[in-house]
């Protein structure tokens, strides 16, 4: 063949098929609406809401907001509860890791963080309230043991400063930050670093604080900011544990948004912007504190103080860990007891008449809420898993290495207070003709499920030994066969765990359900809060217990199914390294 006729060979490149459109679709699906939601709240905050005939920009909504007599108290309660909860959760997570690393309790804590994290906010708050109220379970137990009469007169839950709310948030957010600590530690040769520090004479806790924490902190930053933004704007927990006159800012705003006269709509939107400002200011404040500590830490790190052998720290850490585990499990237990209690007068330590009547009484309402919850959670989770896997597979095939900035994008819906954008998003949905429809609800859940599912999946996906896929390809299997026959089964466990997390996030969502569903759909979360507002402990126990039980069931399936499917595949069961 003459050389001139030789075919020009085009180097092989993976076709950029539909898969490469997925990241863009994913971003469009959840970032654009959030930003549109913020703008859709900002405009009415400035007096522009054509739907109500308001077309002139002014500062009147802001002035009305600032003139509201409840505002100062609401802002104080918001700041106290949110900042205190975040600070305590951060100190607890770091303190527990520093004092307990290397102990068996720490391994247990690692295993229990995920189920702890799965406790929905409303259920946890209800259980916690049942526990610590003046006529709650703890006082009843104390009376049974020590004697005594009338319930103590304490403003708990519902103290003016939001201290009870802070305690509930601490209980909820510590496991989240602990999980971030565990995930970060898995990526470091922690044991070797600590061995070196210990051999240089440093005590265990000091070694952890001086060697591991400075490396780890960068990875904790976004989770901490998310906790901060969330704690400052939580609604369902604040409705159960927070103050009432006045309530926290986000709760106050929800009432205004719901006001049937619509007169409070514009100031509520302005309040949404104030809420966003508080979250951003708190994050900036935290960042400043970080910088200050980093500067002050230099001499401390290099100062050579070795610290103690850590016996006392270890005991304090163990006590804190046990308190956390006790409060969480006792809250769950209290929910279960109240759901089965027909008669439980003060100060009986246990119900005196038991029965299933509460469950039967809830009947069709319970069934409806359960069905909606399950439908929303499973659909949103399935979509989130498919989108996340698609994005990760696309990233792998094209050898993309996402930047740290991409992580900020994923965290964005978790960093912006829900009350600051859900109103605008609802306006957008109404404009699209999707108001109060099931697709709107599913999408609003997807918004919060997707970040968690993606974050849970990304590490294991990227950590899978690339040579397995190469081996598959070189054995003659195409990309999609390798994906379905090698990648998916090998990642079954992390995929199911990510799905369980997504499922639990959806089951817990309160505010997005209210807004996107326009109050026309009830879920376990909305009914649990409503039952609490109706002061019906038994009904609240039923909804709270079921709401808490579903995520636990999800985690049980996620942990047991791979063991069942791969019971004869030791290599796969042992290969999982992460808690």
């Amino acid at each position, binding site marked *: 063949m003459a050389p001139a006729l030789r075919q020009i*060979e*085009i*180097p*092989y490149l*993976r076709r950029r098929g539909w898969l490469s459109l997925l990241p863009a679709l994913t971003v469009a699906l959840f970032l654009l609406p959030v930003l549109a939601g913020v703008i859709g709240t900002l405009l009415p905050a400035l007096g522009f809401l054509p739907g109500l005939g308001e077309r002139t920009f002014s500062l009147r909504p802001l002035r009305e907001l600032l003139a509201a007599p409840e505002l100062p108290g609401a802002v104080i309660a918001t700041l106290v509860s949110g900042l205190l909860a975040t600070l305590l959760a951060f100190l607890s997570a770091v303190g527990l890791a520093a004092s307990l690393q290397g102990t068996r309790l720490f391994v247990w804590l690692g295993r229990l963080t995920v189920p702890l994290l799965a406790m929905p906010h409303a259920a946890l708050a209800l259980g916690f309230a049942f526990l610590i109220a003046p006529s709650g379970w703890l006082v009843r137990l104390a009376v049974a043991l020590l004697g005594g009469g009338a319930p103590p007169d304490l403003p708990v839950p519902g103290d003016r400063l939001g201290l009870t709310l802070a305690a509930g948030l601490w209980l909820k957010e510590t496991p989240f930050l602990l999980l971030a600590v565990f995930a970060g530690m898995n990526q470091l040769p922690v044991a070797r670093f600590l061995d070196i520090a210990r051999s240089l004479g440093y005590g265990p806790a000091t070694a952890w604080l001086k060697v591991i924490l400075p490396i780890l902190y960068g990875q904790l930053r976004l989770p901490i900011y998310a906790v901060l933004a969330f704690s400052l704007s939580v609604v369902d927990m604040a409705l159960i544990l927070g103050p009432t006159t006045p309530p926290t800012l986000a709760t106050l705003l929800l009432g205004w948004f719901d006001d049937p006269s619509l007169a409070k709509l514009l100031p509520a939107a302005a309040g949404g912007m104030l809420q966003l400002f508080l979250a951003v200011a708190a994050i900036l404040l935290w960042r400043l504190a970080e910088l200050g500590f980093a500067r002050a830490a230099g001499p401390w790190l290099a100062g050579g103080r070795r610290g103690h052998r850590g016996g006392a720290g270890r005991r304090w850490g163990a006590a804190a860990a046990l308190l956390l585990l006790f409060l969480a499990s006792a809250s769950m237990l209290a929910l279960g007891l109240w759901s089965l209690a027909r008669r439980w007068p003060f100060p009986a330590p246990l119900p005196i008449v038991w029965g299933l009547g509460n469950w039967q009484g809830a009947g069709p309402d319970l069934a409806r809420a359960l069905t909606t919850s399950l439908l929303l959670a499973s659909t949103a989770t399935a979509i989130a898993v498919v989108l996340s896997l698609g994005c990760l597979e696309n990233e792998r095939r*094209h*050898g993309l*290495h996402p930047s740290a900035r991409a992580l900020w994008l994923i965290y964005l819906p978790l960093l912006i207070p829900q009350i600051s954008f859900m109103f605008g998003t609802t306006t957008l949905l109404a404009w699209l003709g999707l108001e109060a429809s099931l697709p709107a609800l599913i999408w609003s859940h997807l918004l919060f499920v997707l970040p968690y599912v993606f974050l849970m999946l990304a590490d294991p996906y990227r950590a899978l*030994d690339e*040579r*397995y*896929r*190469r*081996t*598959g*390809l*070189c*054995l*003659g*299997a*195409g*990309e999609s066969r390798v994906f379905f*026959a*090698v990648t998916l*089964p*090998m990642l*079954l466990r992390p995929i199911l765990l990510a799905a369980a997390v997504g499922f639990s996030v959806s089951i817990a969502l309160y505010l997005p359900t209210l807004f996107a569903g326009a109050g026309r759909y009830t879920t376990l979360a909305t009914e649990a809060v409503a039952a609490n507002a109706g002061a019906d402990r038994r009904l609240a126990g039923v909804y709270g217990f079921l709401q808490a039980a579903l995520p636990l069931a999800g985690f049980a399936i996620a942990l047991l199914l791979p063991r069942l499917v*791969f019971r*004869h*595949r*030791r*290599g*796969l069961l*042992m*290969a999982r390294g992460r808690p």
Partner: protein
Amino acid sequence: MSMPLREGLTLAGVALRLGGRRLLGPLDLQVPPGEVVTLMGASGSGKSSLLAFICGTLDPAFAAEGRVLLDGIDLAPLPPERRRVGILFQDDLLFPHLSVGGNLAFALPPGLERSERRERVAAALAESGLAGLEGRDPATLSGGQRARVALLRMLLSEPRALLLDEPFGGLDEQLRHRFRDLVFRRAAERRLPALLVTHDRADAAAASGKIVTVDEDFSNDHKE
């Protein structure tokens, strides 16, 4: 369809770069059918990346130039799964979620009857002294058995060339000998061109083929 001539594996002016830095090459190399050519070089010299380039699985972060021909066919336009280049790594990389039989069946070409797939798997196992292990979990096999299953799996995919990425490194001395001989024997029987990457001189000597050093400093580094 005309049968392609058995010309072996040809590398013509292959060079790899990473971030503008030349990693390896340009390399001209001819591996005739049934022979083993050994590439030696220090770790980090880009040997494994060269094998990935031949397979078509090179990370896009690398830039590669030059041509790779297998039996006269340019591999560049082909996706990895159609290149028919088999590769063995230091780890056996048996799929942990599949049984031994499942791993082997994964490699068989599609379109065979179920019974035939089963028979071919059983026959391959029997031929290597592993008869009856189809149902076993790969994790329960000994290191030597796993290495042999990995070799069988690769051979069942009917490759036309063999790439060996230090596949003997993980085995102890005795197993290493036997497995090495088995691999070279199989390659010779099937008249497959084989490219071995190693930093072990005994492996290179056992291959009894041409030895190419890809890193110029290599001989100096290892004089002591």
